[in-house]
């Protein structure tokens, strides 16, 4: 997907003012802090940030599956499909169940835990389909499943009869992906889909996802702490820091012309197998305590470009032109 | 050792072993309650007998008196003051219980540590031994041994009683200490310790043991509770020679002479029973707070 096609498109998911908090021993942890984010139909949006920045919580909130300790304090999540706009957070339990997996699907981190260890793979497919579509002929289900598994280079005849523990990590991840696609969702969330895999399999899965995206135009939200992976697959990237979105731009801009100091520092601190090594610099200072974040801009204690105002006022996410959003006092919005 | 050093060591002991544990316990209401009750019992056993001397002369006119100013808990079947008996009987019970607790955790810890760290054939032998002791029913065995001792005419002192009471209880602790040792042995910090050349002794007692301490400390409390029941139980059944005024003895006598929970003379059975139960409850409450003392991760600061 090229840079231009991301311009004026339909917004398939709009997150407005989402705040998610957790009650912990030491106080209240605000994992997601008043986040506004639009995801366009047919794009691959990468959501990147370090551990603890809130990206996983954000993803889970989209399907209203936050951890028991946590609660959604405020905000709306509007899903636009077939001309109508639904607030996911206001759906009743039964409607939500129908919604999950058929409209929006999610591939969790750590595929091993997503399977029921005592039933075979074929039964996972049957259960999922029947749960949503009622009784469907087994033949149809397996035909569909086989085609999906072929796409991810799995031998359907073998895999369908396996139990989850008989599969390797890579196989489980690919099976989970097939399972996520079986109901033909419009939008799929991938939470660290490649973290637990070896490098070679990772490369294949990413290429696979690119191919599937090219073929079907499926919208994807790709969450990872590894920015380098996003260089290959994302159309746009959103960077998160301590619960806030600090920058959103298309993939080339993020890597070649980042504007937010955190993005710049993050990029400079990732070693790579190409490029000179002298350019790398560590990010200064420790990560602040998420329960008591710094006042004003949360990044200001570590920011090499901070100004007086950064210590007092939290910067808003503004558009500085061409859909490039930054939350930093150094920049002014374009009219 | 000069004065400075002695002062420093004293201060350290005061701080580490008294101030900090108290501070930790004070945050847990139940543990604090347990501690206070226990201290009351200990004080009662030490200085109580000075103020409330035991008078075992029968006084038949005053049998089965209900509580009054003269006899706060009433009198027994021979007209003797129950309160005095309670106060004086505490000593034996507390000593036996805590001694038994120490023996249990001492045996259990050493055996568990050895089996876990050394492994191999030693481990197999010890584990089999532990399993055998775990299957032997504790109290019935005690009853048998107690009866035999009674008939054999061997004089039984308090240390022997303590050992007897822990005859099977050490096995459970040994098994769990062993499994803790097995899992801690694999941890990276133990590998680093080995690289740093630290001795086996240091690793077992200074690195592995602290990890097992919370469990051992709680086990101490619970072993003491179990020892109290075993001890008073044996006496209540009349199986070991007792000194008069001992709580278990009181229950035994009460069964023989009175045996009712209400009506005249009921205090003779109620007083020792209540006193035992309150002791047990306070020990259990205290054991909840002990965890925090030995496990720095659970502390709030």
């Amino acid at each position: 997907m090229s840079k231009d096609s991301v311009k004026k498109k339909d917004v398939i998911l709009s997150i407005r003012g989402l705040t998610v908090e957790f009650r912990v021993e030491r106080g209240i942890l605000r994992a997601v802090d008043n986040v506004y984010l639009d995801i366009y139909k047919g794009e691959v949006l990468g959501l990147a940030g370090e551990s603890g920045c809130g990206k996983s919580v954000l993803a889970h909130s989209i399907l209203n599956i936050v951890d028991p300790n946590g609660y959604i304090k405020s905000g709306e999540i509007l899903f636009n499909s077939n001309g109508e706009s639904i607030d996911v957070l206001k759906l009743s339990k039964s409607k939500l169940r129908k919604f999950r997996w058929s409209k929006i699907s999610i591939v969790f981190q750590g595929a091993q835990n997503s399977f029921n260890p005592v039933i075979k793979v074929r039964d996972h497919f049957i259960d999922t389909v029947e749960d949503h579509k009622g009784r469907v002929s087994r033949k149809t289900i397996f035909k569909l499943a086989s085609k999906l598994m072929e796409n991810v280079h799995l031998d359907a005849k073998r895999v369908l009869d396996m139990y989850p523990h008989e599969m390797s990590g890579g196989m489980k991840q690919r099976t989970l992906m097939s399972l996520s696609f079986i109901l033909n969702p419009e939008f799929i969330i991938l939470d660290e889909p490649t973290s637990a895999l070896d490098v070679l399999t990772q490369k294949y899965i990413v290429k696979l996802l690119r191919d599937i995206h090219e073929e079907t135009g499926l919208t994807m939200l790709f969450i990872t702490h590894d920015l380098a992976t996003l260089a290959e697959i994302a159309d746009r990237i959103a960077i998160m820091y301590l619960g806030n979105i600090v920058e959103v731009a298309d993939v080339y801009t993020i890597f070649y012309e980042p504007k937010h100091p955190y993005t710049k520092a993050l990029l400079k601190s990732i070693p790579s197998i190409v490029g000179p090594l002298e350019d790398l610099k560590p990010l200064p200072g420790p990560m602040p305590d998420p329960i008591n974040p710094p006042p004003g801009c949360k990044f200001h204690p570590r920011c090499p470009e901070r100004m007086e105002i950064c210590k007092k006022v939290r910067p808003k996410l503004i558009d500085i032109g061409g859909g490039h959003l930054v939350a930093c006092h150094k920049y002014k919005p374009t009219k | 050792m000069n004065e400075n050093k002695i002062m420093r060591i004293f201060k350290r002991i005061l701080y580490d072993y008294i101030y900090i544990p108290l501070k930790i316990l004070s945050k847990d209401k139940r543990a604090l309650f347990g501690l206070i009750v226990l201290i009351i019992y200990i004080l009662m056993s030490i200085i109580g007998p000075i103020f409330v001397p035991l008078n075992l002369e029968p006084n038949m006119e005053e049998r089965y008196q209900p509580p009054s100013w003269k006899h706060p808990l009433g009198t027994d079947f021979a007209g003797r003051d129950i309160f005095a008996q309670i106060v004086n009987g505490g000593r034996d019970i507390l000593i036996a219980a805590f001694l038994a607790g120490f023996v249990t955790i001492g045996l259990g810890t050493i055996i568990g540590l050895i089996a876990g760290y050394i492994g191999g054939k030693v481990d197999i032998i010890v584990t089999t031994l532990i399993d055998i002791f775990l299957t032997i029913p504790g109290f019935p065995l005690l009853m048998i041994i107690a009866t035999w001792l009674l008939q054999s005419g061997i004089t039984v002192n308090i240390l022997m009683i303590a050992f007897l009471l822990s005859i099977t209880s050490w096995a459970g602790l040994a098994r769990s200490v062993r499994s803790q040792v097995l899992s801690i042995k694999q941890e990276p910090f133990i590998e680093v310790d080995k690289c740093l050349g630290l001795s086996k002794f240091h690793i077992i007692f200074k690195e592995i043991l602290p990890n097992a301490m919370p469990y051992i400390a709680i086990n101490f409390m619970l072993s003491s509770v179990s020892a109290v029941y075993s001890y008073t139980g044996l006496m209540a059944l009349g199986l070991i020679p007792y000194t008069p005024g001992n709580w278990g003895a009181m229950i035994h006598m009460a069964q023989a002479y009175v045996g009712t929970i209400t009506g005249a003379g009921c205090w003779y059975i109620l007083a020792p029973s209540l006193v035992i139960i309150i002791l047990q409850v306070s020990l259990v409450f205290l054991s909840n707070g002990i965890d925090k003392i030995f496990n720095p991760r659970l502390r709030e600061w």
Partner: protein
Amino acid sequence: MPNPLLKTENVSKIFEVGSMFGAKKHIKAVENVSIEIGENEILALVGESGCGKSTLGKLMLALLRQDSGRILYYLNNGYKDIWSLKGEEFKEYRRNAQLIPQDPYTTINPMRNVLSALTPPLLHYKIAKDRKEARKMAAELLTMVGLVPPEDFFKRYSCRLSGGQLQRIAIARAISVKPKFIVADEAVSMLDASLRIEILDLLLNLKKKIKTAYLFITHDLAIARYFARDQRIAIMYLGNIVEIGKTEEIIQNPLHPYTKVLLMSVPIPDPKIARSRGLPKLKSLEIPSLVNPPPGCKFHTRCPYAEKICEEKVPELREVKGRLVACHLL
């Protein structure tokens, strides 16, 4: 190289897995590995999880015993098998071979505070003559690794420290006895991306002060390139070393097919390059099991260039273009 500090000769390690009643399975974690580490040099050991790199590191530290082959340590102008060392000689080897483990949260005893993690080895090796001096030295060590003021950290436990701080303490522990050789086993893998460079720079700076050789184990080629720049890299696959040589040479011009495939798969933080790279040709995505490894060259089941000889004969490490590669096709 002249007089390497530590070398392994045809070292193998087999793990037995299986219950008492079933057939025991054998996992060849390390097979026939011969490498050398010179004084004050860095050798990065790169491979994917399960390839045996951690096992090799532990073998070189005598934390595990090899099943065949020898591990030799240079002592008193000669090489001695580390398992034959006794007394003072063993103490000397033991002191000079240290470990920095992967998980920062289990690198110090969670039940003991930072001070008690640092002082025992100082007292044991009589580097400090009493508790007071050990405490002073512990403060110096903490300052060296960037934890200031050190007194703030003495009484803390691992539950109240961050991953970065704990890893620094792990480094302080390792260097406290001034060893000649340190195995860093995925030392930065569990830290946040932005912290990694900081810790690696710390290790490099310390290396300038205390001349130490490193065996730097990692699955991340980019990190290996950063840490072992101008030094050497060894690539490991399923228990064998497949390529070993100068870092930049291997990265720019890999010779072994596995190394080539690895380099093609490592994510690159540059969209233009990343999106124009093709997919490495692999015959299969499945990693062979370690219990029944493929005969001949273990990579032949996935190698795009595999030929008949690769299925039959195990390739040996031979010198090709100034480095060692184990491949029949070169």
